[in-house]
């Protein structure tokens, strides 16, 4: 197409000679690390910066500490639960915390960590032998860390109490002054108590009254044995979901609730997840496509306080996946790789897979894609869009606990457009609805126990119940519910 060199009437204007391309300079400097200029570089990250091993380690560790320090959310002595999946990012996070706790580190990390591992084998359809094998590996790694750890199986989600879905009122946010005071107080205590604060079970200073201490807990609690019936029920639940997108969302919701439950029972007030920058950029675009534009700040921000008493924190959010992978390789971080629900699924199987493929492909072509999306995500705020009537106590979604973002009054919106067509659909003659009524299998026994609804309920009752539950969901949870099989009127423990 019209490129320079073709014949035109007027001459193409001459641009001033372009500045010497940075590539040339860099190629000369590739021999040395860009930071210390002495060491031999072992990897190239960011926009072509070569780092030697020690400088890379310092850079990596500094980023981790900086994210924690900048946000000032984790108070000294606080109990923090690390959600470890065995994957590279969470393993890296776990090891960063371990190294930070050791007394040799420059500024010792001051919180009290525990680890939780969720066995999702039933949802992924793994057989019991493979699951036992993985569990053994997990146990050996977690024992070597010396931290208190909790292993739970996803089947335990059936035993969750109803209170899990209730929205807890949020604690008053502590100001900056309180943080500084807490840190100073903690330092004084440590100095007063002498050489207290051993690595594996940090003794708890009694002076900090604002945090509640639980009774002394077991250093490790392996998964409570789950029955085969529960495993069966769980796999039936997941098999009844029609699309992989809805399966992944369901798995995420169940996993989150389970981890929060563990945190609450054992007195943890924060949960750390190992989402890296790349994963969060993919998650942001995925959630955009799922209709969660209103909640992006909660889903991808540093702190997620929608659950009230327990805050989910993402300290790895500035580390790119490439850096994590290299760090794990260079410093031999142990990981346990287990097949996930979408392993080996084709690209078009779910929105999550599609977005991941797209972002990684675009990143190869435009290397600043992930960091651009990340920077945009930092500008999102946790509020309803400016200009809308924001009532302080809006109802929350039953499944994801975010403020409802559907407004039946305003019909000149995407939601309005879809509900008007649905309305016209329902007004079609009875013949149509009866033809559309699917044969309804009875839902898994453990699922709706608390409601006692679906056993023996007539189809019309079930539909009413379903409509009732859908009213309490946000836009994206409603779309996901459409993909759930008939008869699943809600999660376990739904309270009306």
């Amino acid at each position, binding site marked *: *197409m*019209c*490129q320079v060199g073709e014949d*035109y*009437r*007027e001459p*193409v*204007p001459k*641009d001033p000679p372009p500045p010497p391309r940075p590539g040339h300079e860099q190629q000369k400097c590739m021999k040395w690390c860009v930071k210390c200029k002495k060491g031999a570089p072992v990897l190239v990250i960011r926009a072509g910066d070569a780092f030697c091993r020690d400088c890379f380690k310092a850079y990596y560790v500094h980023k981790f500490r900086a994210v924690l320090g900048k946000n000032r959310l984790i108070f000294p002595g606080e109990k923090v639960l690390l959600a470890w999946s065995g994957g590279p990012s969470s393993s890296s996070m776990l090891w960063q915390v371990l190294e930070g706790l050791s007394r040799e580190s420059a500024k010792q990390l001051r919180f009290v960590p525990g680890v939780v591992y969720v066995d999702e084998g039933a949802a992924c359809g793994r057989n019991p032998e493979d699951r036992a094998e993985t569990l053994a590996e997990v146990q050996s790694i977690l024992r070597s860390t010396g931290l208190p750890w909790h292993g739970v199986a996803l089947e335990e989600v059936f035993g969750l109490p109803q209170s899990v879905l209730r929205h807890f009122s949020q604690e008053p946010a502590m100001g900056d002054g309180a943080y500084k005071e807490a840190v100073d107080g903690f330092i004084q205590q440590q100095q007063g108590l002498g050489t207290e604060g051993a690595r594996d079970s940090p003794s708890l200073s009694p002076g900090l009254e604002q945090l509640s201490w639980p009774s002394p807990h077991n250093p490790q609690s392996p998964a409570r044995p789950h029955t085969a019936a529960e495993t069966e029920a769980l796999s039936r639940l997941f098999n009844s979901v029609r*699309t992989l*997108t809805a399966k992944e969302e369901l798995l995420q919701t169940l996993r989150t609730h389970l981890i929060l439950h563990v945190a609450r029972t054992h007195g943890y007030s924060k949960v750390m997840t190992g989402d890296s920058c790349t994963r969060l950029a993919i998650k*942001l*675009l995925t959630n*955009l*496509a*799922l*209709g*969660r*534009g*209103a909640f*992006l*700040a909660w889903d991808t921000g540093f702190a997620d306080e929608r659950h009230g008493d327990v805050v989910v924190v993402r300290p790895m959010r500035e580390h790119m996946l490439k850096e994590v992978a290299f760090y794990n390789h260079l410093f031999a971080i142990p990981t346990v790789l287990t097949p996930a629900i979408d392993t080996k699924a084709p*690209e*078009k*199987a*779910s*929105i999550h897979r*599609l*977005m991941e493929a*797209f972002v990684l492909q*675009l990143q190869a072509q435009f290397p600043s894609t992930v960091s*651009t*999306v990340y*920077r*945009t995500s930092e*500008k*999102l*705020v946790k*509020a*309803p*869009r*400016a200009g809308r009537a924001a009532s302080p106590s809006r109802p929350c979604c039953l499944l994801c606990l975010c403020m409802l*973002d559907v407004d039946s009054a*305003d*019909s*000149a*919106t*995407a*939601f*309005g*457009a*879809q509900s*008007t*067509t*649905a309305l*016209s*659909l329902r007004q079609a003659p009875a013949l*149509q609805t009866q033809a559309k009524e699917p044969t309804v299998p009875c839902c898994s026994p453990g699922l709706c126990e608390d409601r006692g609804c679906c056993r023996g309920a007539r189809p019309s009752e079930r539909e009413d119940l379903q409509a009732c539950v859908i009213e309490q969901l946000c*836009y994206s949870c409603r*779309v996901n519910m459409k993909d759930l099989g008939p008869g699943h009127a809600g999660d376990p423990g739904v309270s009306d």
Partner: protein
Amino acid sequence: MPAPPCASCHAARAALRRPRSGQALCGACFCAAFEAEVLHTVLAGRLLPPGAVVAVGASGGKDSTVLAHVLRELAPRLGVSLRLVAVDEGIGGYRDAALAAVRRQAARWELPLTVVAYADLFGGWTMDAVARSTAGSGRSRACCTFCGVLRRRALEEGARLVGATHIVTGHNADDMAETVLMNFLRGDTGRLARGGGLGSPGEGGALPRCRPLQLASQKEVVLYAHFRRLDYFSEECVYAPEAFRGHARDLLKRLEVVRPSVVLDLVHSAERLALAPAAQPARPRACTCCRALASRPLCQACTLLDGLDRGRPRLAIGKGRRGLDEEAPRAGAQPPPSAALPAF
């Protein structure tokens, strides 16, 4: 196997299934439903008050053709009068054929048509000239950046020429979905903050704009044009393959295969985005050069044209802004001589 009867009139055989709901409808009922939904959008959003003189941005393509047709059907009920405004960007081999289609439509519908050309409005700069000017730096030409900004200025000018009170464009739901994806990928927080509604109310003297087709998906627009046998121009712009929007469009098409409702889900997300106040665009004021709406001392159109005149076309794009405060145009590349610039 014969098609099921239409779900609405139960008389004719169904001719299609609506992508949105899976409902089987015959051609006539589908068109009626489509028109009813557009009417509902306009009324519920209070987009076009009675007595408005509406300038329809007509490009000859499927969206603006459907828009003009539907608004013409609805005009008596809404109490508005229509004018067609077409913009000639000066893209050889593309725009001339499209304009021929617009002229045919104007004749058939008996609507007044006004054509505004870049060459007249912007000192002789046609899109082809812009493309030649930005070519050769080894980077992408960003033709769509220039064309989009200049076209909006041209549309505003054309609307003023015909005495319109509102401007409507044929953007559909797929366009809005692609826009939000693209803006996130490019990190354009200003546009993310501004977009998402059904249009802009028209601040600081600019005409209010809206997009009545915003909640209709592209498939339905094409089907409507098919059933009403509308004559439109269906080739893509010669510069389209270079655009970044192509990535977003490709992604959207793939997403639609996985989950058909993703288009409206993205529009819903775009409506509900909450950006920090610091990321919001500045309060609009008048451009010092042409008195149009601007968020900086110079509006984007004037800035781009200034850069082109100086022979530094990338002046207003991205990091080229550093040169903006330099002196007035030197004897750099000048556009080909043309008729005198009209006073804005």
